[in-house]
Structure formats: structure tokens, C-alpha cells
């Protein structure tokens, strides 16, 4: 038998539970719409001056969210606030709601960096942590299933982006991928000079007896890797993609050798 009083009690209890677990920022604010109530509001909520100036500065666009664009026409699914004009829209600046993944936003955009090989590697960690403070699944325990799944995907994507951009070789391969250059995984080569060099290098690592000889080999390989890394930068900037791919192939061999050395040390 449906008991109206019990139902009212239960829904107010869940409301109270939600409010108490919601971080202070998102609690009922006199000027901002409550996240709970917004889905039912069909008109523009009363805006505070900050929001008004944001709206005025942005180009007019319809409410339906444009999922294929990473620019200003994206609006928050939760409160309707419009996303930033530039940069990735991963979490709403107004209500903090995590947004669904937009695959057209590339890793460089997520980190607010120019799409090129040489980047400020030192800045990556800070930006990564800043994003995770807004996106991490641990922060959305009390949110809807929808937002929880957005958070899981968005957070995972930022992790991928961070790892890809942090390592020079994966960054190089990602840049090629963005240029639609497909590096064939199954390609086999039989260039005698290149392979002989790599064979001898790996044999030297295998036969090295002590840390000193390993360190010597390591520094030699690192120098070669750096040289080819610079060659990639040059080739890529000239859009000489064949040479660029060739550089990444060599880099891969040196990276593998370095991994083996690290294992042995």
C-alpha cells in the first residue's frame, strides 16, 4: 500500500543526504540554481553578474549541445551554462558537473598546449592534477549514475592524455596519428645496417657484466635516442612524414634497449 507520508519522509531524507554529502560549493546558493531542481526548470534561472558577463561575451548559439565541437557552443548538461571559448570543456565552470567525453578534443587541447613535438614537459603534471581534482571518480560518489560514468570516462581520458604526452616517443606517434599517418603495426623490415646495429646493441646489453658497462651503453643509447628525437622534430615540422615515421622506428629500438638496461640495473 503506497503510503504518502512515508514517501514524503523518504524523499526528504534522501534530499537531506544529498545536501549533506554535496561539497559546500554546490550547496543551495541563493543566486545559483540547485543541481537538484535544474532539470525541472524550463526557463533561464536567475543569473548572477559573473554568469551574465560570460553569456554576453560568448557568441549566441542554440541550446542543443553541439557534441562535435570543442568550442563555445557546448553547454553544461546540468545547469545549461555555456562552456569556455577555447580549451577543453571537461567540467562545468559554473556548477562543476563533469561533462561527457568529446572525442574531437585532442590530448594537446586537454592540456592547453600547442599541437607540436616540443612541449613544456614540466607543466604536464600540474595540469594533470588540476584536472583530476575536478574529474576524479572519487569525487562523484553521491552524483547521478550519468555523471559517475562521465567522470570515469573523462578521468581515464585525461590519464591517457597525460601518459601519451609525457613520453616523447608516444607523443611523436600521437602527433603522427593526428595527421592521419598510420604506422603499420605488422610491418617487417630487413634493412641489414639498421638491424645489425640494433642486434649488436641488444647483444651488448645482454652480455654486459656489471653496472659500469651497462651505464656506458645506456649513455650511448640515450645520445642516439636524443639525436633521432631531434631528427623527428625537424622532419615533422617540415611535414616530411616518411622521414618522421622512420625516426620513430629507430627511437622505438633505442627505447626498448633502454628498458632492458633499466631492468638489468
Amino acid at each position: 500500500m503506497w503510503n504518502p507520508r512515508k514517501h514524503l519522509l523518504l524523499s526528504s531524507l534522501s534530499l537531506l543526504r544529498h545536501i549533506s554529502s554535496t561539497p559546500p560549493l554546490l550547496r543551495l546558493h541563493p543566486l545559483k540554481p540547485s543541481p537538484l531542481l535544474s532539470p525541472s526548470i524550463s526557463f533561464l534561472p536567475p543569473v548572477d553578474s559573473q554568469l551574465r558577463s560570460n553569456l554576453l561575451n560568448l557568441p549566441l548559439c542554440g541550446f542543443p549541445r553541439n557534441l562535435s565541437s570543442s568550442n563555445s557552443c557546448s553547454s553544461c548538461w546540468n545547469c545549461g551554462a555555456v562552456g569556455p571559448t577555447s580549451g577543453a570543456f571537461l567540467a562545468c565552470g559554473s556548477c562543476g558537473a563533469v561533462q561527457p567525453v568529446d572525442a574531437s578534443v585532442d590530448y594537446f587541447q586537454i592540456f592547453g598546449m600547442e599541437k607540436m613535438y616540443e612541449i613544456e614537459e614540466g607543466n604536464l603534471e600540474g595540469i594533470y592534477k588540476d584536472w583530476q581534482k575536478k574529474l576524479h571518480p572519487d569525487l562523484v560518489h553521491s552524483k547521478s549514475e550519468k555523471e559517475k560514468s562521465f567522470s570515469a570516462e573523462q578521468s581515464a581520458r585525461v590519464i591517457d592524455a597525460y601518459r601519451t604526452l609525457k613520453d616523447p616517443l608516444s607523443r611523436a606517434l600521437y602527433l603522427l596519428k593526428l595527421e592521419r599517418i598510420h604506422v603499420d603495426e605488422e610491418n617487417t623490415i630487413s634493412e641489414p645496417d639498421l638491424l645489425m646495429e640494433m642486434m649488436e646493441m641488444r647483444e651488448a646489453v645482454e652480455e654486459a657484466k656489471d653496472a659500469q658497462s651497462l651505464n656506458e651503453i645506456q649513455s650511448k643509447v640515450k645520445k642516439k635516442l636524443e639525436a633521432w628525437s631531434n631528427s623527428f622534430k625537424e622532419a615533422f615540422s617540415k611535414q616530411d612524414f616518411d622521414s618522421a615515421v622512420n625516426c620513430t622506428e629507430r627511437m622505438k629500438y633505442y627505447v626498448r634497449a633502454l628498458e632492458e638496461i633499466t631492468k638489468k640495473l
Partner: protein
Amino acid sequence: MLRLVGKRLLPQTLAPQSTASPALAARRYHERVVDHYNNPRNVGSFDKDDPTVGTGLVGAPACGDVMKLQIKVDEQSGKIVDACFKTFGCGSAIASSSVATEWVKGKQMEEVLSIKNTEIAKHLSLPPVKLHCSMLAEDAIKAAVKDYELKKAKNGSSEASSPKVAEA
């Protein structure tokens, strides 16, 4: 959660997961691959300059693998009497080249050219993601045969020309 566990298992370490519980047995190296890794057959090197030796050197740049397969051929019969390999790569690549050396021994050179990567892959139950390792082994066999034949042709032509030089 399961997806994460699956992803973590996928990049396999070379240590055979003999202690893995049956529940996680979904992604492991096949026991034949593990066997070839633990009990490698025919690892070694022949003298590259030996006229009876053909050396096949191939690589897979996408994974940074390099594979050397050598055959020792009996000049009279054209039969491969011995084979050895040296591979730097994943367990599947090592096992593929090990199997290749086993299969070419005692066969005619023309015969080994028909060894297909799919047969090696089937023998080792290689997953799709490792099929290119068997391809590498097939290419290595072909490269070794080609190298031997090139050498033979070169030696043959130099033998033919030297009597003339001696006469002159």
C-alpha cells in the same frame, strides 16, 4: 573493475604465470610459448661468413623486435642440416623463431619457403595481437634462404672467374 584487470593482464610479463588462479587464466601465454621460452631450442650463432650458412635478419619496428635466424645448408643435397636463432622481443616472437628453427631442420630449402606464419601461430595458439610475431618468423626463414642463395651465386661466380685470373 574487470575491464581494468583485463587491461593490466594484457601487456604480459615474460615470467610464466604458473601461479595465476584459474579465474584469471583467460589471458596467458600458451604453454607451448612458455615451454619455448623456458627451454629454448637452437639459440645461438653460426659464422656469418661461412659459405654454407644463410643468415636472415628481420625486424618489427613497431615493437622494436629484431630476429636473426641462421641455416646451415648441405651444399650437395640442398638440405638444411642445422639452424639457430637469436631474437630480441616478446615471448611470442622468441617462441615463433624457436619453432621456425625446429621446423626447418632436415628440410629442403624450397620446402621451407612454404612454411606459413599461420601454421606457426596455430601451433603456438598465438592471439590475434601476436600474429605479426609469426609473420616475422616466416620472413626470417625466407631471408635466410635468400641470403644463402645470394652467397652461393656470388661464390659460384667468383670460382668461375678465378681460373681465368690464374691463367692471366
